């Protein structure tokens, strides 16, 4: 190869390496570009303000460091005696104001567009609760819960952590590409905040009120975010995962969800008609308990102080059945005990209540059939 060619080749290799390392460097340090028009504009705003600050910092700190060097006593034994200048004060007041106006203009235009939620193609109602999200497609009338899927063993360091540790859920929010999607956020208990950095959407979910935000996503893929407002014990454990599919696939998915709902209701009918054994209920109940209840009441039912009462030997699991069913189905107002009736099926509710009444030394021998739960709804 001629020397020109080999120089060009090494130059190309160098550029590629430099470019990828710079990209890697930027990826580690920079705000992400994201996949939406808004997220990219926000990154540009971030870069702009960062550069303004860097330049101002270089000028000011540069002057300071120069002065520290040049005006130290050994080099500059006689201090000057100037100590005021109105002209200078005016200049270094006016110039920053002009810089700020320059920064405010793009920020204002971007903000006006972000706050324009009109003309959406699709509305999703996001209801936050401790500590999961509920997604409901208003037009399609489909809804489901989305909860952290990372196993407890990983959190407790008994198993190696997966690649998406704390950023994986059982049922992601599925959205179509290239449609304007309007999000309505609400909450069932405390203030949470729904945030997907790749969309640059962050909106608080406030109990008793609804907020709105929008996005339009051109690129299919999986996007991960987190709750961004302290909401109690498991604030770190309620991620947001959004799966974006091309429009045709999304429509198919919606149809599939409707079908699944029908099947589930068919399944629910079968479940109520069946008479379940204690062994079956205890097995299902333990699974339900570990998935939904153990985070507060502990896997062995001992609870955590008075905040999360013990169920092993507890008043309610060993007391009247009706009160226990009511507590699990409807929650307790003013506490973190949620209403599980909308979240779990008859079978799951019957199983977990049976489990709680017969595990850890609670020997009520009560067996609750799914049809009993159905009747109580």
């Amino acid at each position, binding site marked *: 190869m001629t020397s020109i060619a080999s120089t060009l080749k090494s130059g190309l290799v160098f550029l590629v390496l430099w470019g990828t390392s710079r990209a890697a460097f930027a990826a580690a340090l920079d705000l992400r570009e994201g996949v939406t028009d808004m997220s990219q504009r926000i990154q540009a705003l971030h870069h702009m303000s960062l550069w303004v600050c860097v330049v101002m910092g270089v000028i000011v700190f540069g002057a300071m460091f120069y002065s520290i060097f040049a005006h130290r006593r050994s080099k500059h034994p006689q201090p000057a005696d100037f100590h005021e200048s109105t002209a200078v004060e005016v200049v270094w007041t006016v110039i920053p104001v002009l810089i700020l106006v320059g920064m405010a203009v793009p920020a204002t235009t971007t903000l006006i567009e972000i706050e324009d*939620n009109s003309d959406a193609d699709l509305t999703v109602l996001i209801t936050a609760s401790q500590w999961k999200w509920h997604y409901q497609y208003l037009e399609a009338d489909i809804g489901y819960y989305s909860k952290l899927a990372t196993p407890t063993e990983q959190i407790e360091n008994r198993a190696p952590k997966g690649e998406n540790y704390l950023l994986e859920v059982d049922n992601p929010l599925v959205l179509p590409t290239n449609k304007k999607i309007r999000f309505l956020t609400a909450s*069932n208990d405390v203030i949470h905040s729904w945030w997907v950095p790749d969309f640059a959407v962050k909106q608080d979910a406030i109990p008793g009120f609804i907020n709105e935000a929008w996005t339009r996503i051109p690129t299919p893929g999986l996007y991960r975010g987190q709750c961004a407002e302290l909401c109690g014990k498991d604030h770190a454990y309620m991620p947001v995962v959004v799966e974006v599919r091309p429009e045709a696939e999304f429509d198919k998915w919606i149809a599939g969800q409707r079908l699944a709902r029908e099947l589930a209701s068919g399944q629910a009918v079968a479940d109520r008609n069946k008479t379940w054994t204690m062994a079956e209920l205890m097995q299902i109940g333990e699974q339900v308990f570990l998935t939904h209840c153990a985070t507060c009441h502990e896997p062995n039912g001992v609870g955590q102080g008075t905040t999360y009462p013990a169920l092993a030997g507890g008043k309610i699991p060993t007391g009247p059945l009706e009160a226990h069913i009511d507590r699990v189905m409807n929650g307790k107002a*003013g506490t973190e005990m949620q*209403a599980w009736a909308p979240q779990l099926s008859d079978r799951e509710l019957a199983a977990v209540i049976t489990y709680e009444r017969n595990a850890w030394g609670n020997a009520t021998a009560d067996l609750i059939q799914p049809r009993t739960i159905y009747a109580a709804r």
Partner: protein
Amino acid sequence: MNDTRNNQRKQVILLASLAVGMLGFAYALVPLYEVFCEVTGLNGKNYGRAVDPAVAQVQAAPSNREVTIQFLAHVGNGMPWEFRPTEHQLKVRLGELKFTEYYARNRAAQTVTGQAVPSVSPGYAAKYLHKIECFCFSQQRLEAGADQRMALRFYVGDDLPAEVHTLSLSYTLFKVPAVQAASPGARLASNQQ
């Protein structure tokens, strides 16, 4: 010397009054906030004062402009009711009087009283939603196992800003503690609506 003591005493009294005044100001922020929200309609609080039908600006021929209203329902923690809109959304013309219902059923084994609290998005559109009759005006009481359909009669003012095409109206149903439950069908004081 006396002069200074007098001056000091006056200043202390003035400054202490300022502190006490600011405490009062903190409490004054509460009604100020309500007034600000009402006047601007910000925050989506829909005061939903009952509009007297006789006074309502319901036009005989409503405007051609249509908007979509979505109806949402939430149930507060510890509230053992099923609660949902009977229609998910309606297309309404501005100025046209519309009617819809929410369905509620008390799952519990005892009488429970609830209060529905509305919220509108976008927030600034709240003041253009005029309710003539709303179940949110009063507490709702249901016996054990009973259910009911609750009425909502409203219109959207034709002065709704042009950029609004979709309105979302959400009700959250909260449980009213027994001690605060008024007698059946009682109207709440207007500052609680």
